[in-house]
């Protein structure tokens, strides 16, 4: 489960994604920018999840 917090034009939105495809979908719906920028956001979210998973095993 991923929790994504978007803030655009001063408006805050919290959405939950159950898998990587949903992360991608939500970032494409709720953010603006080029594909490269959106992909970087997706990678950040997925990477942070991996870091959290790794921390559990420490």
């Amino acid at each position: 489960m991923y929790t994504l917090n978007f803030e655009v034009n001063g408006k805050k939105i919290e959405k939950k994604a159950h898998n990587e495809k949903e992360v991608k979908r939500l970032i494409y719906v709720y953010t603006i920018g080029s594909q490269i920028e959106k992909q970087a956001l997706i990678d950040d979210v997925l990477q942070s999840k991996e870091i959290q998973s790794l921390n559990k095993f420490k």
Partner: protein
Amino acid sequence: MAICKPNCVTGLPNFGAVNDCDLQASFSSGEIAQVIFTKCNLEIDDVDDATEWETNITNGDVTVPFAGNGKIDEQTESGEYRVGCQTVSSICKKPFEFVSPVTDTASQTEWDLYNQIQKQRLGLQISFLTCDGILLVNPDWVTGSTIGLPITMLKIAQIFSGETDGKMTYKISGEIAECRSLKRVKLSADTIAILTEANTGS
């Protein structure tokens, strides 16, 4: 012959891979099940928030005519100019058409609802819901902005075909002033329920 402008390319998109063993799984509906009219200055924070849509419908800022069947056609481009060895169109419009045979057989009042849409058309924008629950909205939409597409022409017709056993239909047609591909948003079941059930005209 056109002049090459490499600076115009800021980064080409990567379409990625598809499962070519099951291409049907990658197809999306090409049918419009409902049209949604929104007040042209109505800002939507969360496109997939059922409560926000319900509030907007209750406040009279959103209306969803009865279900039907519709389509959005290929755009027409006109007003062409020749610039830098390329032909550039200055006008671009995308036509749409939606037909519903659904009427209010209890109170026979849906005609007035369609008339109200027609009367207020200058303040309206339009969005489309496909048969697989995807909302087609303005490609520029982002949290806190207007979601609909500007309408350059809107016509609502009540049609009696005169055919044997034919049914009266309402036809909503017009043109939207947007020729880019529309933003596709997969809606949750809760949001679809509000958009397809809440505004029955009763």
